[in-house]
């Protein structure tokens, strides 16, 4: 078992992971169908684009206008989903809780699609409706899972399946309202795709990922007690309903902004928090921030695989994360 989480230990681990994230971002931006001279690219990246370092303007455009935004978006999405997953798991006392499996991503997807079809001109309507969709799906699945004796792990997952399938039919319904030329890019987006976002949505996703991680880390000690049960948490001084509201709203923001910009990337919120607990212990004060950074690394690497494995064609990143996540889910389910 790992040592007790303290401020010092947590800071050291997070600083180390952050350095790893920066290295991963730099390395992954060198990979792709267009070969970039490594030394020049690293030099240009580390100067934040101020110096060309011998890159041609085409190479510079590939690096800064195509690859870097996509990588940063991947980092934001990975951090958001991992933090949302870790928080849901603690709050719902269920190691299997995950935004994608609970249907929360689908709720956000329905919101995004409604915005695209009916409010297509307004870019901000997408994350806003995605947030509302995620929040409604969260409340719905929470209600469905509450039995007379509280939510059992299996009951919660079952409620997630019901919400997912219901919302999937809503997605099919909205898809039929779209014109045929957009349907293909749409199905791709639904599976999780980081290629088609705008710079506004990228900045929004980055901002929400960072702010959401900070807010949920600040509630981590309350989440530690909620992990033991709502009654225990209440007895020890946690304002349970307030913390629950904060987690539902902030996690919905995290899921909403990721889905609005990149569709439903599945299993990140399951794989990453699980690995964090395995290696660092269950204390959310370390699990939540570490999950944010490792979630970013996970999705950035998965997306690099998605765009290089069968280059010049691309896979949706959600296909890669599901390939890793689904077997882990089976393992966790069996162990429970």
């Amino acid at each position, binding site marked *: 078992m790992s040592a007790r989480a303290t401020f010092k230990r947590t800071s050291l681990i997070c600083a180390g992971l952050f350095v790893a994230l920066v290295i991963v971002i730099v390395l992954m931006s060198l990979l792709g169908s267009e070969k970039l001279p490594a030394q020049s690219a690293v030099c240009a990246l580390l100067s934040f684009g101020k110096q060309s370092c011998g890159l041609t303007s085409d190479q510079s455009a590939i690096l800064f206008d195509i690859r870097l935004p996509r990588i940063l978006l991947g980092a934001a999405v990975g951090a958001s989903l991992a933090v949302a997953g870790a928080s849901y798991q603690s709050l719902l006392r269920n190691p299997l809780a995950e935004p994608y499996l609970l249907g929360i991503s689908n709720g956000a997807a329905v919101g995004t699609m409604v915005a695209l079809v009916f409010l297509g001109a307004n870019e901000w309507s997408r994350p806003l409706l995605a947030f509302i969709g995620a929040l409604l799906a969260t409340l719905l699945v929470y209600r469905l899972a509450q039995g007379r004796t509280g939510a059992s792990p299996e009951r919660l997952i079952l409620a997630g399946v019901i919400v997912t399938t219901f919302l999937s039919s809503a997605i099919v319904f909205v898809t039929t309202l779209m014109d045929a030329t957009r349907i293909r890019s749409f199905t791709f987006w639904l599976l999780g795709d980081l290629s088609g976002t705008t710079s506004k949505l990228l900045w929004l996703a980055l901002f929400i990922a960072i702010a959401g991680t900070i807010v949920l880390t600040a509630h981590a000690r309350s989440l530690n*007690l909620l992990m033991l049960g709502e009654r225990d948490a209440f*007895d020890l001084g946690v304002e349970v309903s307030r913390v629950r509201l904060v987690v539902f709203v902030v996690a919905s923001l995290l899921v909403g902004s990721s889905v609005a910009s990149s569709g439903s990337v599945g299993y990140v919120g399951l794989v990453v928090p699980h690995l964090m607990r395995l290696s660092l212990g269950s204390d959310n004060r370390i699990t939540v921030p570490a999950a944010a950074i490792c979630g970013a690394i996970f999705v950035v690497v998965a997306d690099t695989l998605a765009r290089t494995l069968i280059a010049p064609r691309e896979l949706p990143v959600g296909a890669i994360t599901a390939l890793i996540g689904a077997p882990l889910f089976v393992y966790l389910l069996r162990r429970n």
Partner: protein
Amino acid sequence: MLEARNITVKYGVRRAVADVSLRLAAGEVTAIIGPNGAGKSTLLRTLNAGIRPESGEILLDGQALNSISRRAIAKRIGVVAQEAELRFPTTVFEFILGGRYAWATSSAWGWETARDVEVAQTVLRETELEDFADRLMTELSGGERQRAVLARALATEAGLLLLDEPTANLDLAHQAMILALVRKRCDTRQTSALVITHDINLAAQFSDHVLLMKDGSSIAYGSSREVLTPELLREAFDVNVLVDAHPVSGVPRITPVHRSLV
């Protein structure tokens, strides 16, 4: 000190607790006994502000309970409830540090202070769990886990302890050990404790006052000699009992006399 006056709690139309009053003074242990479904646990949760009473008032150190914040209540009331199933690995030390939650200050950024760690180590010693500090809660035996739960309640340094069957499922030695710990805390720190138990002899041995409940009502409330009489116990449990003096301590000793055996 906690004082409850004429507490009534309703679940729908059913009165789970009906017009119960009690007073928990510093340094005293009060036991609640009564048959299953008598409203003992409901009363305990009501005294901890977990359930809002239909009528009556509860004063904690002279202040109305419903006017005190959750965190402030948790600093003054430590609870041992029937435990929930653990689904995430937690070490004994982390678990006990949970009792320090209400004492967190914003200047410590939500981290335990040196004092929190010191308090946790003290209660670990008191409950003889030092060797288990780094073990997982799920690896403990029933008796060890129950001690850890009590240790967490002691770590709150609350002046009032509410204990819901803290000795359930424990063997003879561990039952006495848990209650001796509670008794010692009350004697040395002027803590008051309210203990729900099904073991009437244990209640007689460790408590100053006994509250006997049935169907939500208080049948008797007073010293163990006043409450633990054959008449009152028959009224509550519908069982004939023999009451004599404990050969060592002299407190009332209760022996059920089952009809089939007479």
